[in-house]
């Protein structure tokens, strides 16, 4: 008698009586049996049980079909598991727990490796990397686009080369390998493709030539105060300002300040630099973080003092400041308050940046004096802003 079995999982063998019977696929039973033996289950017990499994499987394969035989095999394996455990306890010797632990550890590692490799395996190309709708290029030098091909799970397929092609808009220089040269301003639609997968994006060429220096224009950073946006002024070749910018910025000392995009968060008093890369050009922006103090009695470097400035007509306020270098901002709140006057006896000051900012070199016993004019309008109130930053 012969039967048909699935060729890959079972084979026909003789049973010694001239009949042809199905034999179980050797892989799984051998592995399970080997594992049990490795764990220390009684080899006589294991051999007898698996021998019966094989014999019964062959018998059922002949009479009930291979699928039914496989189901029986699996069910019987599960039903017999407690007996294997019992046999292991009976048969375990001195070092069996160690062997068990080592085997189980190996199994866990192997299972983890299988799961990880399964989870991280690469599939066929499914899509291109997601990119912004518009890409800004500020460099006048050639720039290489590197758009990745991904599989359906988002894994990057390293060896797949994307082709690029200008589609419409201004005639910008785009090579098939993705090299873009932005010597002039312009906008173009560019197509990126890999086989049948394609996407288009807007290429915005905005070449810049240099940065404008704005030393005094940086925002005041105070610990605990609001985050401040860095002021970056990039200029085109013709000297006009370019506002469409794309780049990277890092802060040198992250203990003093941190960056979120181009927004600076003050963390502790001190001075540091922010490096900004845009279009292949680096701008170095010094930033200083101050600690707010309530008085000028012991004004240390990186202390910031900003009293409430509200004076009645004819009233004067004054503050002694220690010897050192200061950056002072003094600004009336309104036109009506423009009569407010700041004098700095004992300090040498020069205007810096705008009309309201000064660098001052204070000697011992220097002081800041703000006076509201007296005269015709008694009871009139003057208000303004006074900010004192001790630099050194």
């Amino acid at each position, binding site marked *: 008698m012969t039967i048909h079995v699935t060729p890959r999982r079972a084979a026909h063998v003789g049973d010694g009586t001239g009949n042809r019977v199905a034999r179980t696929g050797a892989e799984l039973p051998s592995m399970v049996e080997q594992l049990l033996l490795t764990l220390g289950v009684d080899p006589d017990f294991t*051999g007898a049980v698996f021998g*019966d499994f094989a014999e019964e499987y062959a018998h059922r394969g002949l009479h009930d079909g291979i699928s039914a035989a496989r189901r029986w095999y699996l069910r019987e394996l599960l039903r017999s598991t407690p007996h294997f455990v019992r046999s292991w306890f009976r048969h375990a010797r001195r070092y069996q727990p160690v062997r068990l632990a080592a085997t189980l550890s190996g199994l866990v590692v192997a299972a983890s490796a299988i799961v990880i490799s399964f989870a991280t395996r690469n599939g066929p190309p499914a899509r291109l990397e997601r990119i912004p709708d518009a890409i800004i290029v500020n460099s006048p030098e050639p720039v290489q686009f590197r758009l990745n091909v991904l599989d359906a799970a988002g894994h990057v397929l390293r060896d797949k080369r994307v082709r690029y092609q200008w589609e419409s808009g201004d005639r910008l220089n785009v090579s098939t390998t993705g090299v873009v040269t932005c010597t002039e301003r312009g906008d173009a639609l560019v197509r990126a493709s890999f086989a049948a997968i394609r996407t288009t994006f807007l290429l915005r060429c905005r070449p810049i030539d240099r940065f404008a220096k704005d030393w005094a224009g940086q925002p005041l950073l105070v610990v605990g105060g609001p985050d401040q946006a860095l002021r970056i002024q990039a200029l085109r070749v013709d000297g006009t300002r370019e506002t469409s910018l794309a780049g990277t910025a890092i802060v040198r000392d992250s203990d003093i300040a941190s960056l979120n995009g181009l927004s600076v968060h003050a963390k502790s008093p001190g001075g540091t630099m922010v490096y900004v890369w845009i279009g292949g050009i680096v701008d170095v922006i010094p930033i200083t973080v101050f600690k707010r103090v309530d008085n000028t009695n012991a004004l240390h470097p990186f202390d910031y003092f900003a009293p409430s400035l509200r004076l009645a007509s004819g009233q004067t306020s004054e503050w002694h400041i220690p010897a050192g270098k200061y950056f002072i901002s003094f600004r009336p709140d309104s036109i009506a308050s423009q009569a407010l006057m700041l004098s700095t006896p004992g300090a040498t000051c020069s205007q810096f940046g705008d009309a309201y900012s000064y660098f001052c070199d204070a000697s011992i016993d220097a002081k800041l004096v703000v006076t509201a004019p007296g005269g015709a309008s008694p009871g009139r109130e003057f208000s303004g802003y006074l900010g004192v930053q001790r630099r050194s």
Partner: protein
Amino acid sequence: MSKPALGSLELAALLTVTRLCENAYGVTIRRDLFDRTGRDYSVGAIYTTLQRLEDKGFLTSRSSEPVPVRGGRSRRYFRLTGEGARALRDAERRTTSLWSGVLAGDLASDRPEPA
């Protein structure tokens, strides 16, 4: 010294081994038990019981030559020992003693329920 007691599966297995004579090994014992009791014992349960009976000295076993249909493994044939035979007779006596005095009428299915 008291003799080790026999469980119900142990008793059934001893009787089956006795009945199968020279052909008593896992597969045949299991099939015979199924045919006679209707209970489908797992292969592991059968061998655990047989091993326990062997430990008690009621059975001995020997291995056959490797058999192709078993994937080249041997069959483990079991035989009743003298001790096993005595255990069976004891079990029979106890059972008979327990049954004595029980009349067929007492077990009739139409027997009225006690009030």
